[in-house]
């Protein structure tokens, strides 16, 4: 291991812009040298602010230091760049679960498993969270890996983040105080603490979400199927959409983008920028006409913009 660290340090010294900083930070983290790992990861991310693997690694380092808010922020940023990043999804699931948001964790881990059906870590973590929520005791058959042979490769390719399955302190058999308290009302849990910016709007805490361009939730909230709060996951994915839209508009010489409307099977989504660095999502039922959804989004945009201005003042 120390041989690896020496070799990786040499490579990074020769080329400070190298992405090898992730391997070095990870090696340091595994050795337990978390301060040094943090320095290396932050140094690398200063040069590569869009590097999902780097943020995923940073998340693991913060988690190792028991700094869950920062871990969650790091994984959120990884997901903003790469919405399907397995390590970041697993990490985010862990962070949400540890914060008492078992339902949020459920949504994230289901997404991880949907994208990576052969991943044992995600499957185990999902089982743990489901049991914590009093759902089923066993893993559903559909979640079993499609190809048994793929397991080993995935396990070795993904450095295991501290997953709920291997964190006995918060294991569901004997829920911790934090987990027990929040898991019961997890859907409302995350949203209820957020500022009531959209009071008076329909779906103020479950269908309107204000977040920043790094994928961090600012206000509002978004409920998923079964009332599961999906704010964190959605904000991470939508921040990625925002940067992709910015790039598209730039290369096609379309000027600044003002709104993205997605008509989907179960809902219509309107995504719009709110001043520099902030974004708004309004979700409306599929039956609500798109034009109307856009107008609602405009009103919410004005409200959010005014609220943000007051925060900055």
């Amino acid at each position, binding site marked *: 291991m120390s041989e690896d660290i020496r070799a990786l340090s040499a490579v990074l010294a020769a080329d400070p812009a190298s992405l090898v900083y992730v391997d070095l930070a990870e090696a340091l983290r595994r050795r337990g040298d978390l301060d040094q790992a943090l320095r290396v990861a932050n140094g690398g991310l200063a040069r590569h602010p869009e590097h999902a693997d780097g943020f995923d690694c940073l998340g693991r380092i913060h988690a190792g230091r028991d700094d869950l808010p920062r871990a969650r922020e790091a994984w959120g940023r990884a997901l903003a760049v790469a*919405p*399907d990043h397995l390590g970041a999804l697993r990490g985010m699931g862990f962070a949400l679960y540890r914060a008492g948001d078992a339902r949020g964790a459920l*949504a994230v881990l289901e*997404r991880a498993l*949907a994208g990576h059906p052969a991943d044992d870590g995600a499957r185990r973590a999902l089982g743990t969270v489901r049991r914590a929520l009093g759902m089923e005791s066993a893993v559903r058959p559909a979640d079993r890996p499609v190809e048994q042979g793929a397991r080993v490769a995935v396990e070795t390719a993904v450095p295991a983040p501290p997953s709920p399955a291997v964190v006995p302190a918060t294991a569901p058999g004997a829920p911790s105080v934090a987990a027990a308290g929040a898991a019961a009302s997890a859907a409302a849990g995350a949203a209820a603490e957020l500022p009531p910016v959209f009071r008076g709007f329909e779906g103020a805490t479950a269908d309107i979400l204000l977040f920043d361009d790094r994928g961090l939730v600012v206000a509002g909230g*978004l*409920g*998923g*199927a079964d009332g599961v709060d*999906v704010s964190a*996951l*959605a904000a*991470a*994915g*939508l921040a*990625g*959409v925002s940067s*992709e*839209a910015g*790039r*598209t*508009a730039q*290369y*096609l*010489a*379309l*000027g*600044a*983008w*003002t*709104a*993205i*409307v*997605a*008509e*989907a*099977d*179960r*809902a*219509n*989504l309107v995504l719009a920028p709110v001043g520099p660095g902030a974004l708004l*999502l309004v*979700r409306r039922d599929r039956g609500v006409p*798109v034009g109307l959804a856009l107008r609602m989004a405009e009103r919410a945009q004005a409200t959010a913009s005014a609220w943000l201005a007051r925060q900055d003042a």
Partner: protein
Amino acid sequence: MSPDLERALDRISRVRGVRGSMYVAADDGIVVARLLMETVNGKAVAALAASLARKVEGAAAATGAGRVRFLQMDAADGTLLIAPAPRDLLVVTLADPRVNVGLCRFEMMRAAEAAA
């Protein structure tokens, strides 16, 4: 280009303000068939539109909204419209900012059916 696809693209391009439309391979982001004004960089539109559609698809799934059926990006100097079509294709239209989106949407949905 097959006559059906050609006709479908032609109908889209008749909507006032449309700069071009095309069928794009969703996974590869490359042009399958196109009808464009000379000023439009088809390669760029195809690659970037497919990438945007993929990111939106992922984010929409995360919000629990399900599969995306139509996508519209409004920008100061133009509008980008995307409709998923059978056989892993996308129908992509680039238009002026104030284009009649309803009309474009209607023709793009017909174009999507024509790809079946």
